């Protein structure tokens, strides 16, 4: 132990990172663009705190997050607090408490940072940005459709025009298991097998449902094909109703956004333990990770709600960086009014703080793209090799 070299001052805990110039600005701009689309559709922004009592974070839809939440004791109240791992439960809390009297449907938006105890090998980050919306107090096809369309519009606003959305019915499999009267002990291994789409294990644990589940497992894919498979399957009434609503939602979304690639995975319910209706995941083709997800759930007071969360970090990785803002060097002693005029045109001005040598060389040293000369912005000549 005594031989350990001192930790390098730049080393961060695993899963955390600094955003440096340009990247931090790009992130802020992307979040602003997403939030502008949400605001344009009437979603009003709220800002819950980073820490709150754990009961609030883990109520209702938050129950699945307990194991992912950093917890600490509040020295003032002696109660346990959690550092939020997801903002959705906080919005649900606000909707059913402070905003309980506001007329429904209630449209709220948020953007902020979350922290989780551990990352995964595939997604090792432990601090995760979220930007999202919640539509509270309405259980309808129109509400589900609105969320999907607003999500696609927000992604288009940051430059991701080719989006695919995977639609799932997290309650379909439980409805099938219920209708088939499968014993509780048999459900856990079957649910796990379905989660991994492990056909061999589904056949082994599926009992009377093995044939149906195997068909639905392989039906995952383009919406038309999957819906046809659902329509052809012998479903009990509860499951039939879910499938019909899904088909109607697909038709409504396809009519409004024909370019959106829709896929359906009837037996998927991954990570969506709290969802009570249609759930969805946004992908960009060719990207290996989801850009956002959401779905229908029951709020704290049993109020129907549906939400969408986009992940700005992942979105930024999927879009080319926007053109950087031009940087204008303002030499020592130049007229501040001229610099102000250039700022109004969109330049970032970089003022000399002391006398310097040749202006062009000093501008280049400070990583500027232009220099101020005679009131005009003169582009710097490319550096000689």
């Amino acid at each position: 132990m005594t031989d350990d070299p001192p930790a390098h001052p730049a080393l961060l805990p695993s899963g955390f990172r600094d955003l440096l110039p340009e990247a931090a600005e790009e992130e802020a701009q992307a979040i602003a663009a997403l939030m502008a689309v949400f605001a344009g559709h009437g979603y009003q922004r709220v800002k819950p705190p980073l820490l709150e009592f754990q009961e609030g974070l883990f109520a209702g839809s938050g129950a699945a997050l307990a194991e992912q939440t950093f917890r600490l004791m509040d020295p003032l109240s002696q109660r346990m607090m959690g550092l939020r791992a997801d903002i959705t439960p906080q919005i649900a809390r606000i909707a059913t408490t402070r905003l309980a009297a506001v007329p429904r449907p209630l449209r709220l938006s948020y953007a902020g940072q979350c922290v989780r105890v551990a990352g995964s090998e595939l997604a090792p980050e432990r601090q995760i940005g979220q930007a999202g919306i919640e539509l509270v107090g309405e259980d309808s096809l129109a509400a589900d459709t609105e969320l999907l369309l607003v999500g696609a519009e927000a992604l288009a606003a940051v430059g991701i025009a080719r989006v695919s959305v995977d639609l799932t019915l997290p309650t379909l499999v439980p409805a099938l298991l219920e209708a088939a009267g499968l014993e509780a002990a048999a459900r856990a291994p079957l649910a796990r097998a379905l989660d991994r789409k492990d056909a061999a294990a589904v056949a082994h644990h599926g009992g009377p449902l093995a044939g149906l589940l195997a068909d639905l497992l392989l039906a995952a894919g383009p919406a038309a094909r999957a819906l046809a498979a659902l329509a052809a399957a012998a479903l009990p009434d509860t499951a039939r109703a879910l499938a019909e609503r899904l088909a109607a939602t697909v038709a409504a979304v396809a009519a409004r956004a024909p370019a959106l690639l829709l896929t359906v995975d009837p037996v998927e319910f991954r990570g969506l333990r709290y969802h009570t209706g249609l759930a969805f995941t946004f992908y960009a083709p060719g990207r290996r990770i989801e850009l956002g997800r959401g779905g229908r759930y029951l709020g704290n007071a049993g109020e129907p709600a549906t939400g969408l969360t986009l992940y700005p970090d992942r979105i930024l990785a999927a879009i080319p960086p926007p053109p950087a803002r031009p940087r204008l060097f303002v030499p020592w002693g130049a007229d501040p009014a001229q610099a102000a005029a250039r700022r109004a045109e969109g330049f970032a001005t970089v003022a000399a703080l002391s006398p310097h040598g040749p202006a062009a060389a000093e501008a280049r040293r400070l990583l500027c793209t232009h220099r101020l000369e005679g009131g005009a912005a003169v582009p710097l000549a490319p550096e000689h090799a």
Partner: protein
Amino acid sequence: MTAPFALPCPAAAADRPLILALPKGRILGECGALLARAGLHPAPDYADEASRRLRFPTDDPALEVVRVRSFDVATFVAFGAAELGICGADVLMEFDYPEIYAPLDLGIGRCRISVAEPAETAGTDDPARWSSVRVASKYPSLSRRHFAARGVQAEVVALSGAMELAPTLGLARLIVDLVQTGSTLKANGLVETEVIAPVSARLIVNRTALKTRPEAVGGWIARFRAALEPG
């Protein structure tokens, strides 16, 4: 920020050939007939482990084959570096990547993953009384899960081969390993005391690839499924 690494640009990634990862060793030899029935013919040296090539074209320009270690097939597919792969169920049980779907049991590479111990200690005491047990295995996480489910803490010595030596040389009380015929165990004075699970090769696919390239990836699942139909 995270060091950027040269990902193909999104458009290119969406249209690049699919990659099928095949495992070196035991299963590879049995793959040939199945691939042919699925209408897939990689460059012939793909099955030649002496070949230094790792990436092989096939007769379908939209699909390439890579040959990696069996455990790495799961990693390549989980991270989306390969959209499809073939590997033993043992590898999936060990890694348990949520990003991997295993839509088909290919029925080849059959064996089992088992607990074994020296013939002289087998049956001499009651495992229910153990608090912990030292196990040698190349399946540390699977071994821990297996014993934890029985209330026993497994202290795993991770080895990558020659597991059978561990009990006799005092490295571990038990081993957890693949057993095909049992002859290696027998030759080293070990007996199989418990079968953890039967193992066969699975077709695996990356979850995101199935969602974002459903036609292409789904098409290959269908072709492999058809290749498994009798007759």
